[in-house]
């Protein structure tokens, strides 16, 4: 039986009054943020209500193709976001970002849901959608950071890369150091969050389960496996992205095609 407090629209209205605090700060400090604040608050409410209705519908329909469609759309949006955040771009970066996010997150979700959690049936939306959402969010960060770092490294270290090539380095030897730095940059946030989890931060999923009346021990177990999903998916996504960049920017004749990197 649900042992949590149900939230009414009146409760939401009450909580929304708190946004006035932000408005007041903005007015007092002349930050001119009132308009953005209002738009952001309204967007937040509308987007969440909307997704709430969609989720309710998906849960009711309970069909594999609907679940696939929803996570497909989520994956697409995550892939686009991983690309859009980067200032230095190259032709084909959008598709590289999308494929990196897609392959890594779906692979890990498949392993996690089917092998580890053994969800029955495999498409059960109650599990698939929230876990996919968390995996995608992290993969997006990993891929985006990796791409951002690699394009910056290659732009800054163009002369070093060429120096290595002119000493007889293979294209891979010339790419290795920037690639290592980029993969490291992509993996750091997950490692850092695993370091302090439970000490500084109580993750949202676990908190949510506890609020919903779940046994904290089970909630924590869920959190632990999800953290492993997240770290694996973001690392694989980042490595894939860095490999795709290598294929785009280094020719088979060991040339560095630096001109393909363009600042937005």
């Amino acid at each position, binding site marked *: 039986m649900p042992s949590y407090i149900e939230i009414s629209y009146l409760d939401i209205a009450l909580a929304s009054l708190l946004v006035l605090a932000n408005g007041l700060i903005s007015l007092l400090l002349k930050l001119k943020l009132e308009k953005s604040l209002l738009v952001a608050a309204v967007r937040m409410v509308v987007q969440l209500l909307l997704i709430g209705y969609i989720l309710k519908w998906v849960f009711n329909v309970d069909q594999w193709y609907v679940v696939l469609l929803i996570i497909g759309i989520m994956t697409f949006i995550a892939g686009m976001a991983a690309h859009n955040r980067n200032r230095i771009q190259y032709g084909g970066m959008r598709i590289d970002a999308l494929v990196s996010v897609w392959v890594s997150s779906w692979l890990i979700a498949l392993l996690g849901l089917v092998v580890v959690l053994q969800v029955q049936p495999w498409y059960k939306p109650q599990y698939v959608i929230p876990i996919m959402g968390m995996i995608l969010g992290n993969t997006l960060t990993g891929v985006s950071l990796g791409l951002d770092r690699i394009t910056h490294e290659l732009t800054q270290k163009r002369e070093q890369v060429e120096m290595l090539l*002119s000493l007889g*380095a293979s294209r891979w030897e010339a790419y290795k150091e920037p690639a290592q730095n980029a993969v490291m940059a992509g993996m750091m946030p997950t490692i850092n969050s695993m370091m302090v989890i439970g000490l500084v931060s109580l993750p949202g999923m676990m908190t949510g389960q506890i609020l919903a009346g779940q046994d904290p021990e089970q909630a924590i177990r869920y959190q632990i496996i999800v953290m492993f999903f997240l770290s694996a998916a973001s690392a694989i996504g980042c490595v894939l992205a860095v490999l795709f960049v290598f294929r785009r920017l280094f*020719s088979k004749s060991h040339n560095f095609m630096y001109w393909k990197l363009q600042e937005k």
Partner: protein
Amino acid sequence: MANKKILLKAENLCRIDPVNKVMLVKSASCMIHQGNRIVLSGSSGSGKSVFCRMLALLDQPDQGSIIFNGQLVRQADIPHYRSAVAYIRQRPVLLRGTVQENLMFPFALHIHRERRFNPEKIARFLAVIDKPDTFLQKNAADLSGGERQLVCLLRVLQLDPVILLLDEPTSALDMDMAMQVELLINKWMQQHDETRAYVWISHDEQQKKRVGQQVWHMNGGVLITGDA
């Protein structure tokens, strides 16, 4: 000395700017023989640098072929080719670490795995430019621009290149340092009994006279070598 071997033969090399599709080098052909000390002159933007980068295969020619030691250079040979036809850029690039570490790292590359760092060889070069052995322990970050360029040269010369492509190696250096670079390269030519060669891009008329025995011109992407 007669009968100097042909080291490199380039035919109809063309390079088109990959971004704006402008023709940068138009059908350049040339031959480099053992012992050649070639100066490449021409106004800036005339395509000298692109041409040299193309000879080093750092920029892939859009057309044309390069024959090195009598053989067409194939894709798989490119890393090896680049260590034999070595390109030296105007701005020296060193890695973090000491001078010695910078001189040693090329031996970690796959292509040089059979070779070993040779301190005696380096010592001989250092004697030419009047640097003490302690120079090797200096941190690369503390070197002057000229010293950095000398280290870059040593790094290449120790690998026994056959042709040096020198892309304004001294244009950012003061007179003394420029002379040291010239001295070092001259020494290298003599050491190998004039069996090596270089192409040197320079804007300094005095330097062109000192280092060049033959002059090539680049004008609007067209190379004039004086050969028929």
